[in-house]
Protein backbone atom coordinates (compact mmCIF):
# COMPACT_ATOMS: atom_id res chain seq x y z
CA UNK A 1 0.00 0.00 0.00
CA UNK A 2 1.26 3.46 -0.86
CA UNK A 3 1.81 5.45 2.35
CA UNK A 4 -0.24 8.58 2.97
CA UNK A 5 2.88 10.72 2.97
CA UNK A 6 3.41 10.00 -0.75
CA UNK A 7 -0.04 11.34 -1.61
CA UNK A 8 0.52 14.35 0.58
CA UNK A 9 3.82 15.15 -1.08
CA UNK A 10 2.17 15.01 -4.51
CA UNK A 11 -0.65 17.24 -3.24
CA UNK A 12 1.73 19.80 -1.77
CA UNK A 13 3.87 19.82 -4.93
CA UNK A 14 0.79 20.35 -7.10
CA UNK A 15 -0.36 23.12 -4.79
CA UNK A 16 3.07 24.75 -5.05
CA UNK A 17 3.05 24.55 -8.84
CA UNK A 18 -0.40 26.13 -8.89
CA UNK A 19 0.66 28.93 -6.55
CA UNK A 20 3.76 29.69 -8.62
CA UNK A 21 1.66 29.65 -11.76
CA UNK A 22 -0.80 32.18 -10.33
CA UNK A 23 2.05 34.42 -9.28
CA UNK A 24 4.07 34.37 -12.51
CA UNK A 25 1.56 33.68 -15.29
CA UNK A 26 0.46 36.62 -17.47
CA UNK A 27 -2.50 35.03 -19.22
CA UNK A 28 -5.83 34.88 -17.38
CA UNK A 29 -6.78 31.49 -18.78
CA UNK A 30 -3.50 29.98 -17.57
CA UNK A 31 -4.14 31.68 -14.26
CA UNK A 32 -7.51 29.93 -13.96
CA UNK A 33 -5.91 26.62 -14.76
CA UNK A 34 -3.41 27.18 -11.97
CA UNK A 35 -6.18 27.97 -9.48
CA UNK A 36 -7.96 24.76 -10.55
CA UNK A 37 -4.71 22.89 -10.00
CA UNK A 38 -4.54 24.25 -6.45
CA UNK A 39 -8.14 23.21 -5.77
CA UNK A 40 -7.44 19.74 -7.10
CA UNK A 41 -4.33 19.46 -4.96
CA UNK A 42 -6.57 20.09 -1.97
CA UNK A 43 -9.01 17.48 -3.29
CA UNK A 44 -6.22 14.93 -3.53
CA UNK A 45 -5.19 15.65 0.05
CA UNK A 46 -8.80 15.30 1.22
CA UNK A 47 -9.26 11.98 -0.54
CA UNK A 48 -5.95 10.65 0.77
CA UNK A 49 -6.79 11.61 4.35
CA UNK A 50 -10.27 10.26 4.05
CA UNK A 51 -8.99 6.93 2.79
CA UNK A 52 -6.26 6.58 5.39
CA UNK A 53 -8.47 7.62 8.31
CA UNK A 54 -11.33 5.50 6.99
CA UNK A 55 -13.86 8.36 7.29
CA UNK A 56 -16.22 9.13 4.45
CA UNK A 57 -16.47 12.89 5.15
CA UNK A 58 -13.56 13.75 2.91
CA UNK A 59 -15.08 11.96 -0.09
CA UNK A 60 -18.30 13.91 0.28
CA UNK A 61 -16.41 17.14 0.68
CA UNK A 62 -14.59 16.57 -2.61
CA UNK A 63 -17.89 16.58 -4.49
CA UNK A 64 -18.84 19.87 -2.88
CA UNK A 65 -15.48 21.33 -3.87
CA UNK A 66 -15.90 20.16 -7.46
CA UNK A 67 -19.27 21.93 -7.62
CA UNK A 68 -17.78 25.11 -6.22
CA UNK A 69 -14.91 24.96 -8.70
CA UNK A 70 -17.35 24.54 -11.58
CA UNK A 71 -19.36 27.57 -10.44
CA UNK A 72 -16.21 29.63 -10.13
CA UNK A 73 -15.00 28.57 -13.57
CA UNK A 74 -18.33 29.53 -15.14
CA UNK A 75 -18.20 33.01 -13.62
CA UNK A 76 -14.53 33.45 -14.43
CA UNK A 77 -14.83 32.45 -18.07
CA UNK A 78 -17.83 34.76 -18.51
CA UNK A 79 -15.71 37.59 -17.18
CA UNK A 80 -12.83 36.75 -19.50
CA UNK A 81 -15.20 36.89 -22.48
CA UNK A 82 -16.53 40.30 -21.38
CA UNK A 83 -13.03 41.62 -21.02
CA UNK A 84 -11.97 40.22 -24.37
CA UNK A 85 -14.95 41.90 -26.02
CA UNK A 86 -14.02 45.24 -24.50
CA UNK A 87 -10.30 45.30 -25.10
CA UNK A 88 -9.26 42.35 -27.27
CA UNK A 89 -6.62 41.14 -24.85
CA UNK A 90 -6.53 38.88 -21.84
CA UNK A 91 -3.00 39.71 -20.79
CA UNK A 92 -2.93 40.62 -17.12
CA UNK A 93 -0.25 43.28 -17.61
CA UNK A 94 -2.79 45.43 -19.39
CA UNK A 95 -5.05 45.67 -16.34
CA UNK A 96 -3.53 48.88 -15.14
CA UNK A 97 -6.35 51.41 -15.05
CA UNK A 98 -6.73 51.03 -11.31
CA UNK A 99 -3.47 51.76 -9.59
CA UNK A 100 -2.31 53.54 -6.42
Amino acid sequence: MVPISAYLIVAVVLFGIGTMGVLISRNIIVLFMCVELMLNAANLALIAFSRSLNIMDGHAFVFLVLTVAAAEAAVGLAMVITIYNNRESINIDRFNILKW
Partner: protein
Amino acid sequence: MIDYTSAGIDFGMLAPEIYLLVMAFVVLVVGHLRKVHDWTPVIAIAGLLGALYFSIQQWGNQSSGFFGMVSCDSFGVAFKIIFSSSTLLTVMLARRYMRKKMIERPEFYALLLISTMGMMVMANTTDLVVMFLGLEIMSVPLYVLAGLARRSLQSNEAGIKYFIMGAFASAFLLMGIAFVFGSAETTELRRIVANFNFILNNHSVLFSAGIGLILIGFGFKIGIVPFHSWIPDVYQGAPTPITAFFSVGPKAAGLAVLLRIFLYGFAEFSPLTNLFWILAVITMTVGNVFALRQSNLKRLLAYSSIAHAGYMLVAFTVGGGQAISAVIFYMIGYTLFNLGAFAVVTMLETRSGCSSDLKEVAGLGTTSPYLAAILAVFMFALSGFPPTVGFFGKFYLFSTAVENGFYWLAIIGVMNSFVSVYYYLKVIKTAYFDSASATFESVSYTPAVTFVLFITLLGTLGFGLFPSSLMEFTKSAIFAFL
Protein backbone atom coordinates in the same frame (compact mmCIF):
# COMPACT_ATOMS: atom_id res chain seq x y z
CA MET B 1 -23.81 22.72 26.23
CA ILE B 2 -25.42 22.04 22.91
CA ASP B 3 -25.54 18.47 21.73
CA TYR B 4 -23.34 18.87 18.71
CA THR B 5 -24.11 15.62 17.01
CA SER B 6 -27.84 16.33 16.98
CA ALA B 7 -29.26 14.76 13.87
CA GLY B 8 -32.48 16.75 14.00
CA ILE B 9 -33.46 18.14 10.64
CA ASP B 10 -35.22 21.35 11.57
CA PHE B 11 -35.75 23.67 8.63
CA GLY B 12 -36.87 26.41 11.02
CA MET B 13 -33.20 26.91 11.79
CA LEU B 14 -32.61 27.81 8.16
CA ALA B 15 -35.74 29.93 7.70
CA PRO B 16 -33.97 33.21 6.82
CA GLU B 17 -31.65 31.50 4.34
CA ILE B 18 -34.41 29.55 2.63
CA TYR B 19 -36.63 32.61 2.43
CA LEU B 20 -33.87 34.70 0.86
CA LEU B 21 -33.06 32.03 -1.69
CA VAL B 22 -36.71 31.67 -2.72
CA MET B 23 -37.06 35.43 -3.03
CA ALA B 24 -33.88 35.59 -5.13
CA PHE B 25 -35.43 33.15 -7.60
CA VAL B 26 -38.69 35.12 -7.58
CA VAL B 27 -36.68 38.24 -8.43
CA LEU B 28 -35.01 36.44 -11.32
CA VAL B 29 -38.31 35.30 -12.77
CA VAL B 30 -40.21 38.55 -12.20
CA GLY B 31 -37.30 40.59 -13.53
CA HIS B 32 -37.77 39.08 -16.95
CA LEU B 33 -41.53 39.58 -17.20
CA ARG B 34 -42.02 42.77 -19.12
CA LYS B 35 -45.03 44.14 -17.27
CA VAL B 36 -43.85 43.74 -13.72
CA HIS B 37 -40.07 44.03 -13.85
CA ASP B 38 -40.15 47.40 -12.11
CA TRP B 39 -41.15 45.58 -8.96
CA THR B 40 -37.87 43.68 -8.55
CA PRO B 41 -36.41 46.05 -5.92
CA VAL B 42 -39.65 45.83 -3.96
CA ILE B 43 -39.49 42.03 -3.98
CA ALA B 44 -35.85 42.15 -2.96
CA ILE B 45 -36.72 44.47 -0.07
CA ALA B 46 -39.58 42.17 0.94
CA GLY B 47 -37.13 39.24 0.91
CA LEU B 48 -34.66 41.04 3.09
CA LEU B 49 -37.31 42.26 5.52
CA GLY B 50 -38.58 38.70 5.78
CA ALA B 51 -35.08 37.41 6.44
CA LEU B 52 -34.64 40.10 9.07
CA TYR B 53 -37.91 39.10 10.70
CA PHE B 54 -37.05 35.39 10.75
CA SER B 55 -33.59 36.17 12.13
CA ILE B 56 -35.03 38.23 14.96
CA GLN B 57 -37.44 35.36 15.69
CA GLN B 58 -34.43 33.09 16.19
CA TRP B 59 -32.88 35.37 18.82
CA GLY B 60 -32.26 33.52 22.05
CA ASN B 61 -32.66 30.16 20.39
CA GLN B 62 -29.87 27.69 21.15
CA SER B 63 -29.87 24.63 19.03
CA SER B 64 -27.90 22.57 16.63
CA GLY B 65 -29.01 20.25 13.91
CA PHE B 66 -28.28 18.62 10.57
CA PHE B 67 -25.69 16.37 12.24
CA GLY B 68 -23.94 19.36 13.77
CA MET B 69 -23.56 21.12 10.43
CA VAL B 70 -25.85 24.01 11.40
CA SER B 71 -25.94 25.64 14.77
CA CYS B 72 -28.39 28.31 15.62
CA ASP B 73 -27.07 30.58 18.35
CA SER B 74 -27.32 34.25 19.29
CA PHE B 75 -23.89 34.96 17.85
CA GLY B 76 -24.97 33.80 14.40
CA VAL B 77 -28.31 35.54 14.72
CA ALA B 78 -26.67 38.86 15.64
CA PHE B 79 -24.61 38.65 12.47
CA LYS B 80 -27.64 37.62 10.41
CA ILE B 81 -29.37 40.78 11.57
CA ILE B 82 -26.33 42.83 10.52
CA PHE B 83 -26.19 41.16 7.10
CA SER B 84 -29.84 41.52 6.23
CA SER B 85 -30.06 45.13 7.37
CA SER B 86 -26.90 46.19 5.55
CA THR B 87 -28.10 44.55 2.32
CA LEU B 88 -31.49 46.20 2.79
CA LEU B 89 -29.85 49.62 2.96
CA THR B 90 -27.69 48.78 -0.08
CA VAL B 91 -30.75 47.88 -2.17
CA MET B 92 -32.41 51.17 -1.24
CA LEU B 93 -29.26 53.08 -2.02
CA ALA B 94 -28.56 51.37 -5.32
CA ARG B 95 -31.72 51.87 -7.35
CA ARG B 96 -31.23 55.41 -8.56
CA TYR B 97 -27.49 55.05 -9.13
CA MET B 98 -27.97 51.90 -11.18
CA ARG B 99 -30.66 53.60 -13.27
CA LYS B 100 -28.50 56.60 -13.91
CA LYS B 101 -25.52 54.51 -15.00
CA MET B 102 -27.82 52.27 -17.09
CA ILE B 103 -26.77 49.08 -15.31
CA GLU B 104 -29.94 48.27 -13.43
CA ARG B 105 -30.70 44.64 -14.09
CA PRO B 106 -32.86 42.19 -12.11
CA GLU B 107 -29.81 39.96 -11.64
CA PHE B 108 -28.31 42.66 -9.46
CA TYR B 109 -30.96 42.18 -6.78
CA ALA B 110 -30.93 38.39 -7.09
CA LEU B 111 -27.14 38.29 -6.71
CA LEU B 112 -27.31 40.54 -3.65
CA LEU B 113 -29.86 38.24 -2.02
CA ILE B 114 -27.89 35.07 -2.82
CA SER B 115 -24.71 36.63 -1.52
CA THR B 116 -26.46 37.63 1.71
CA MET B 117 -27.73 34.09 2.05
CA GLY B 118 -24.13 32.84 1.74
CA MET B 119 -23.08 35.16 4.56
CA MET B 120 -25.85 33.79 6.75
CA VAL B 121 -24.70 30.24 6.05
CA MET B 122 -21.19 31.27 7.09
CA ALA B 123 -22.26 32.82 10.36
CA ASN B 124 -24.61 30.00 11.23
CA THR B 125 -22.28 27.05 11.53
CA THR B 126 -19.33 25.67 13.41
CA ASP B 127 -18.27 23.29 10.69
CA LEU B 128 -15.35 24.25 8.45
CA VAL B 129 -16.87 22.61 5.37
CA VAL B 130 -20.12 24.54 5.69
CA MET B 131 -18.15 27.72 6.30
CA PHE B 132 -16.27 27.11 3.06
CA LEU B 133 -19.49 26.54 1.16
CA GLY B 134 -21.06 29.66 2.66
CA LEU B 135 -17.99 31.64 1.73
CA GLU B 136 -18.27 30.50 -1.87
CA ILE B 137 -22.01 31.19 -2.03
CA MET B 138 -21.18 34.67 -0.81
CA SER B 139 -18.13 35.26 -3.03
CA VAL B 140 -19.20 34.03 -6.45
CA PRO B 141 -22.07 36.59 -6.70
CA LEU B 142 -19.67 39.25 -5.43
CA TYR B 143 -17.30 38.67 -8.36
CA VAL B 144 -20.19 39.17 -10.76
CA LEU B 145 -21.37 42.26 -8.87
CA ALA B 146 -17.92 43.86 -9.05
CA GLY B 147 -17.96 43.44 -12.81
CA LEU B 148 -21.61 44.38 -13.21
CA ALA B 149 -20.99 47.45 -15.40
CA ARG B 150 -20.03 45.36 -18.40
CA ARG B 151 -19.16 48.29 -20.68
CA SER B 152 -16.89 49.94 -18.15
CA LEU B 153 -13.24 48.91 -18.33
CA GLN B 154 -12.79 49.84 -14.68
CA SER B 155 -15.58 47.56 -13.58
CA ASN B 156 -14.25 44.72 -15.76
CA GLU B 157 -10.87 45.10 -14.20
CA ALA B 158 -12.29 45.18 -10.68
CA GLY B 159 -14.30 42.03 -11.38
CA ILE B 160 -11.44 40.01 -12.74
CA LYS B 161 -9.03 41.13 -10.01
CA TYR B 162 -11.54 40.25 -7.33
CA PHE B 163 -12.21 36.92 -8.97
CA ILE B 164 -8.56 35.91 -9.25
CA MET B 165 -7.70 36.94 -5.70
CA GLY B 166 -10.86 35.35 -4.35
CA ALA B 167 -10.32 32.02 -6.09
CA PHE B 168 -6.67 32.02 -5.06
CA ALA B 169 -7.68 32.64 -1.44
CA SER B 170 -10.31 29.89 -1.57
CA ALA B 171 -7.65 27.42 -2.70
CA PHE B 172 -5.50 28.29 0.33
CA LEU B 173 -8.48 28.00 2.62
CA LEU B 174 -9.43 24.65 1.16
CA MET B 175 -5.92 23.26 1.53
CA GLY B 176 -5.95 24.47 5.13
CA ILE B 177 -9.26 22.74 5.78
CA ALA B 178 -7.88 19.55 4.20
CA PHE B 179 -4.87 19.64 6.54
CA VAL B 180 -7.03 20.28 9.59
CA PHE B 181 -9.30 17.43 8.52
CA GLY B 182 -6.29 15.15 8.14
CA SER B 183 -4.95 15.92 11.59
CA ALA B 184 -8.16 16.30 13.58
CA GLU B 185 -10.21 13.64 11.73
CA THR B 186 -13.14 16.05 11.69
CA THR B 187 -14.01 19.50 10.41
CA GLU B 188 -16.41 20.27 13.26
CA LEU B 189 -14.92 23.02 15.43
CA ARG B 190 -16.57 21.81 18.62
CA ARG B 191 -14.94 18.41 18.31
CA ILE B 192 -11.62 20.06 17.50
CA VAL B 193 -11.91 22.15 20.67
CA ALA B 194 -12.70 19.05 22.73
CA ASN B 195 -9.53 17.25 21.60
CA PHE B 196 -7.35 20.26 20.93
CA ASN B 197 -4.24 19.31 22.86
CA PHE B 198 -4.35 15.72 21.70
CA ILE B 199 -4.46 16.83 18.07
CA LEU B 200 -1.73 19.37 18.54
CA ASN B 201 0.61 16.89 20.23
CA ASN B 202 0.11 14.14 17.69
CA HIS B 203 0.03 16.07 14.43
CA SER B 204 1.61 19.38 15.29
CA VAL B 205 3.14 20.14 11.86
CA LEU B 206 0.09 19.24 9.81
CA PHE B 207 -2.32 20.97 12.17
CA SER B 208 -0.25 24.17 12.41
CA ALA B 209 0.13 24.28 8.63
CA GLY B 210 -3.63 23.89 8.31
CA ILE B 211 -4.31 26.75 10.73
CA GLY B 212 -1.81 28.94 8.88
CA LEU B 213 -3.37 28.24 5.47
CA ILE B 214 -6.87 28.98 6.82
CA LEU B 215 -5.58 32.27 8.19
CA ILE B 216 -4.08 33.16 4.78
CA GLY B 217 -7.36 32.32 3.06
CA PHE B 218 -9.46 34.51 5.31
CA GLY B 219 -6.73 37.14 5.39
CA PHE B 220 -7.30 37.64 1.67
CA LYS B 221 -11.03 37.80 2.13
CA ILE B 222 -11.18 40.46 4.81
CA GLY B 223 -8.08 42.27 3.57
CA ILE B 224 -5.40 41.77 6.19
CA VAL B 225 -2.03 43.22 5.12
CA PRO B 226 -0.02 41.67 3.27
CA PHE B 227 -3.04 40.17 1.48
CA HIS B 228 -4.85 43.46 0.93
CA SER B 229 -3.59 44.54 -2.50
CA TRP B 230 -6.87 43.81 -4.30
CA ILE B 231 -9.08 45.90 -2.00
CA PRO B 232 -8.36 49.44 -3.30
CA ASP B 233 -8.63 48.36 -6.95
CA VAL B 234 -11.88 46.47 -6.48
CA TYR B 235 -13.44 49.18 -4.33
CA GLN B 236 -12.58 51.86 -6.85
CA GLY B 237 -13.61 49.92 -9.94
CA ALA B 238 -16.92 48.46 -8.78
CA PRO B 239 -20.13 50.56 -9.02
CA THR B 240 -20.38 52.63 -5.83
CA PRO B 241 -23.44 51.06 -4.11
CA ILE B 242 -21.81 47.68 -4.67
CA THR B 243 -18.61 48.97 -3.11
CA ALA B 244 -20.70 50.06 -0.15
CA PHE B 245 -21.99 46.51 0.10
CA PHE B 246 -18.46 45.02 -0.20
CA SER B 247 -17.16 47.17 2.59
CA VAL B 248 -19.73 46.04 5.15
CA GLY B 249 -21.47 42.71 4.47
CA PRO B 250 -18.60 40.44 3.40
CA LYS B 251 -16.34 42.07 5.99
CA ALA B 252 -18.82 41.28 8.74
CA ALA B 253 -19.20 37.72 7.45
CA GLY B 254 -15.44 37.24 7.36
CA LEU B 255 -15.22 38.62 10.87
CA ALA B 256 -17.93 36.26 12.14
CA VAL B 257 -16.13 33.23 10.73
CA LEU B 258 -12.72 34.39 11.92
CA LEU B 259 -14.13 34.87 15.42
CA ARG B 260 -15.59 31.38 15.40
CA ILE B 261 -12.45 29.77 14.05
CA PHE B 262 -9.69 31.65 15.82
CA LEU B 263 -11.26 32.73 19.11
CA TYR B 264 -13.26 29.57 19.64
CA GLY B 265 -11.89 26.70 17.54
CA PHE B 266 -8.17 27.40 17.71
CA ALA B 267 -8.22 29.68 20.74
CA GLU B 268 -5.70 27.52 22.57
CA PHE B 269 -3.15 27.70 19.77
CA SER B 270 -0.66 30.00 21.47
CA PRO B 271 1.44 31.35 18.52
CA LEU B 272 -1.70 33.04 17.22
CA THR B 273 -1.56 35.81 19.84
CA ASN B 274 1.77 37.15 18.63
CA LEU B 275 0.85 36.60 15.00
CA PHE B 276 -2.35 38.60 15.36
CA TRP B 277 -0.44 41.31 17.25
CA ILE B 278 1.86 41.77 14.25
CA LEU B 279 -0.95 41.51 11.70
CA ALA B 280 -3.09 44.05 13.57
CA VAL B 281 -0.26 46.57 13.76
CA ILE B 282 0.84 46.30 10.13
CA THR B 283 -2.73 46.21 8.82
CA MET B 284 -3.82 49.38 10.58
CA THR B 285 -0.56 51.20 9.83
CA VAL B 286 -0.45 50.30 6.13
CA GLY B 287 -4.13 51.17 5.69
CA ASN B 288 -3.75 54.58 7.31
CA VAL B 289 -0.45 55.52 5.70
CA PHE B 290 -1.59 54.66 2.19
CA ALA B 291 -4.90 56.45 2.71
CA LEU B 292 -3.05 59.72 3.35
CA ARG B 293 -2.20 60.36 -0.30
CA GLN B 294 -5.41 59.22 -2.00
CA SER B 295 -7.29 61.67 -4.17
CA ASN B 296 -10.20 59.39 -5.02
CA LEU B 297 -12.90 59.10 -2.36
CA LYS B 298 -13.67 55.44 -3.00
CA ARG B 299 -9.99 54.56 -2.86
CA LEU B 300 -9.58 56.58 0.32
CA LEU B 301 -12.47 54.70 1.92
CA ALA B 302 -10.95 51.43 0.69
CA TYR B 303 -7.69 52.09 2.53
CA SER B 304 -9.68 53.28 5.53
CA SER B 305 -11.55 49.96 5.51
CA ILE B 306 -8.19 48.14 5.60
CA ALA B 307 -7.23 50.23 8.62
CA HIS B 308 -10.55 49.39 10.30
CA ALA B 309 -9.89 45.69 9.68
CA GLY B 310 -6.61 46.27 11.50
CA TYR B 311 -8.41 47.74 14.52
CA MET B 312 -10.73 44.74 14.56
CA LEU B 313 -7.75 42.39 14.63
CA VAL B 314 -6.86 43.87 18.04
CA ALA B 315 -9.70 41.75 19.43
CA PHE B 316 -8.07 38.60 18.04
CA THR B 317 -4.85 39.39 19.86
CA VAL B 318 -6.63 40.01 23.14
CA GLY B 319 -9.14 37.14 22.99
CA GLY B 320 -11.89 36.37 25.46
CA GLY B 321 -15.53 37.33 25.75
CA GLN B 322 -15.06 41.01 26.41
CA ALA B 323 -12.93 41.46 23.29
CA ILE B 324 -15.45 39.58 21.17
CA SER B 325 -18.33 41.74 22.31
CA ALA B 326 -16.18 44.85 21.76
CA VAL B 327 -15.37 43.81 18.21
CA ILE B 328 -19.01 43.06 17.40
CA PHE B 329 -19.88 46.51 18.75
CA TYR B 330 -17.17 47.98 16.54
CA MET B 331 -18.44 46.05 13.53
CA ILE B 332 -22.02 47.30 13.98
CA GLY B 333 -20.81 50.87 14.30
CA TYR B 334 -18.52 50.48 11.31
CA THR B 335 -21.37 49.05 9.24
CA LEU B 336 -23.51 52.09 10.02
CA PHE B 337 -21.06 54.89 9.38
CA ASN B 338 -19.19 53.27 6.50
CA LEU B 339 -22.44 52.55 4.69
CA GLY B 340 -23.46 56.13 5.40
CA ALA B 341 -20.21 57.51 3.99
CA PHE B 342 -20.64 55.42 0.86
CA ALA B 343 -24.25 56.60 0.59
CA VAL B 344 -23.01 60.19 0.46
CA VAL B 345 -20.39 59.25 -2.16
CA THR B 346 -23.09 57.51 -4.19
CA MET B 347 -25.28 60.61 -4.06
CA LEU B 348 -22.41 62.80 -5.21
CA GLU B 349 -21.57 60.42 -8.01
CA THR B 350 -25.16 60.38 -9.25
CA ARG B 351 -24.66 63.97 -10.47
CA SER B 352 -23.72 63.69 -14.11
CA GLY B 353 -20.05 63.93 -14.95
CA CYS B 354 -18.82 62.92 -11.53
CA SER B 355 -16.44 60.07 -10.74
CA SER B 356 -16.01 60.11 -6.94
CA ASP B 357 -12.88 62.23 -7.08
CA LEU B 358 -12.11 64.21 -3.97
CA LYS B 359 -12.15 67.48 -5.96
CA GLU B 360 -15.83 66.99 -6.71
CA VAL B 361 -16.62 67.39 -3.02
CA ALA B 362 -15.26 70.94 -3.08
CA GLY B 363 -17.83 73.61 -2.41
CA LEU B 364 -20.37 71.15 -1.09
CA GLY B 365 -20.68 73.20 2.10
CA THR B 366 -22.29 76.05 0.18
CA THR B 367 -24.18 74.16 -2.55
CA SER B 368 -25.72 71.41 -0.40
CA PRO B 369 -25.13 72.24 3.26
CA TYR B 370 -27.17 69.30 4.62
CA LEU B 371 -25.24 66.69 2.67
CA ALA B 372 -21.94 68.31 3.63
CA ALA B 373 -22.95 68.18 7.30
CA ILE B 374 -23.94 64.52 6.99
CA LEU B 375 -20.64 63.72 5.26
CA ALA B 376 -18.80 65.50 8.07
CA VAL B 377 -20.61 63.41 10.71
CA PHE B 378 -19.62 60.17 8.98
CA MET B 379 -16.03 61.32 8.60
CA PHE B 380 -15.89 62.19 12.31
CA ALA B 381 -17.35 58.78 13.10
CA LEU B 382 -14.78 57.02 10.89
CA SER B 383 -11.96 58.83 12.64
CA GLY B 384 -13.45 58.09 16.05
CA PHE B 385 -14.60 61.41 17.51
CA PRO B 386 -17.21 61.46 20.27
CA PRO B 387 -20.23 61.53 20.41
CA THR B 388 -20.36 59.10 17.48
CA VAL B 389 -20.46 55.32 17.72
CA GLY B 390 -16.99 55.28 16.15
CA PHE B 391 -15.52 56.70 19.33
CA PHE B 392 -17.09 54.10 21.60
CA GLY B 393 -16.14 51.27 19.24
CA LYS B 394 -12.48 52.24 19.43
CA PHE B 395 -12.75 52.99 23.14
CA TYR B 396 -14.11 49.54 24.06
CA LEU B 397 -11.67 47.78 21.76
CA PHE B 398 -8.56 49.52 23.04
CA SER B 399 -9.67 49.44 26.67
CA THR B 400 -10.00 45.64 26.54
CA ALA B 401 -6.47 45.58 25.10
CA VAL B 402 -5.19 47.69 27.99
CA GLU B 403 -7.03 45.62 30.61
CA ASN B 404 -5.38 42.49 29.26
CA GLY B 405 -1.91 44.00 29.28
CA PHE B 406 -1.45 44.78 25.60
CA TYR B 407 -0.35 48.37 26.24
CA TRP B 408 1.73 48.80 23.12
CA LEU B 409 -1.03 47.52 20.90
CA ALA B 410 -3.44 50.07 22.38
CA ILE B 411 -0.88 52.87 22.04
CA ILE B 412 -0.15 52.00 18.39
CA GLY B 413 -3.89 51.80 17.73
CA VAL B 414 -4.55 55.23 19.23
CA MET B 415 -1.61 56.73 17.33
CA ASN B 416 -3.00 55.24 14.14
CA SER B 417 -6.35 56.85 14.87
CA PHE B 418 -4.60 60.20 15.12
CA VAL B 419 -2.94 59.63 11.73
CA SER B 420 -6.31 58.75 10.23
CA VAL B 421 -7.81 62.04 11.43
CA TYR B 422 -5.67 63.80 8.81
CA TYR B 423 -7.26 62.24 5.77
CA TYR B 424 -10.80 62.20 7.12
CA LEU B 425 -10.56 65.88 7.99
CA LYS B 426 -9.08 66.54 4.55
CA VAL B 427 -12.44 65.45 3.10
CA ILE B 428 -14.34 67.80 5.44
CA LYS B 429 -11.92 70.62 4.68
CA THR B 430 -12.40 70.12 0.93
CA ALA B 431 -16.17 70.19 1.35
CA TYR B 432 -16.26 73.39 3.39
CA PHE B 433 -13.23 75.50 2.54
CA ASP B 434 -12.22 74.70 -1.04
CA SER B 435 -13.94 76.43 -3.92
CA ALA B 436 -15.57 74.22 -6.51
CA SER B 437 -13.48 73.55 -9.61
CA ALA B 438 -16.55 73.20 -11.82
CA THR B 439 -20.26 73.68 -11.36
CA PHE B 440 -22.20 70.47 -10.90
CA GLU B 441 -25.91 70.02 -10.83
CA SER B 442 -27.26 70.07 -7.30
CA VAL B 443 -27.69 66.85 -5.37
CA SER B 444 -31.22 65.46 -5.43
CA TYR B 445 -32.75 63.38 -2.67
CA THR B 446 -35.10 60.49 -3.29
CA PRO B 447 -37.16 58.93 -0.47
CA ALA B 448 -35.10 55.70 -0.51
CA VAL B 449 -31.72 57.44 -0.34
CA THR B 450 -32.97 59.85 2.32
CA PHE B 451 -34.12 56.86 4.35
CA VAL B 452 -30.66 55.27 4.10
CA LEU B 453 -28.98 58.50 5.21
CA PHE B 454 -31.48 58.89 8.04
CA ILE B 455 -31.00 55.35 9.38
CA THR B 456 -27.21 55.43 9.20
CA LEU B 457 -27.08 58.89 10.76
CA LEU B 458 -29.52 57.89 13.48
CA GLY B 459 -27.48 54.77 14.25
CA THR B 460 -24.16 56.61 14.23
CA LEU B 461 -25.30 59.35 16.58
CA GLY B 462 -27.89 57.36 18.55
CA PHE B 463 -25.55 54.54 19.53
CA GLY B 464 -22.89 57.18 20.08
CA LEU B 465 -25.01 58.94 22.69
CA PHE B 466 -26.43 55.74 24.21
CA PRO B 467 -23.79 53.05 23.63
CA SER B 468 -24.97 50.92 26.54
CA SER B 469 -28.04 49.61 24.69
CA LEU B 470 -25.87 48.29 21.85
CA MET B 471 -23.36 46.94 24.35
CA GLU B 472 -26.10 44.88 26.05
CA PHE B 473 -26.97 43.43 22.64
CA THR B 474 -23.40 42.41 21.83
CA LYS B 475 -22.92 40.94 25.30
CA SER B 476 -25.93 38.70 24.95
CA ALA B 477 -24.79 37.79 21.44
CA ILE B 478 -21.60 36.17 22.68
CA PHE B 479 -23.20 34.51 25.70
CA ALA B 480 -24.05 31.45 23.64
CA PHE B 481 -20.79 31.22 21.88
CA LEU B 482 -18.56 30.81 24.93
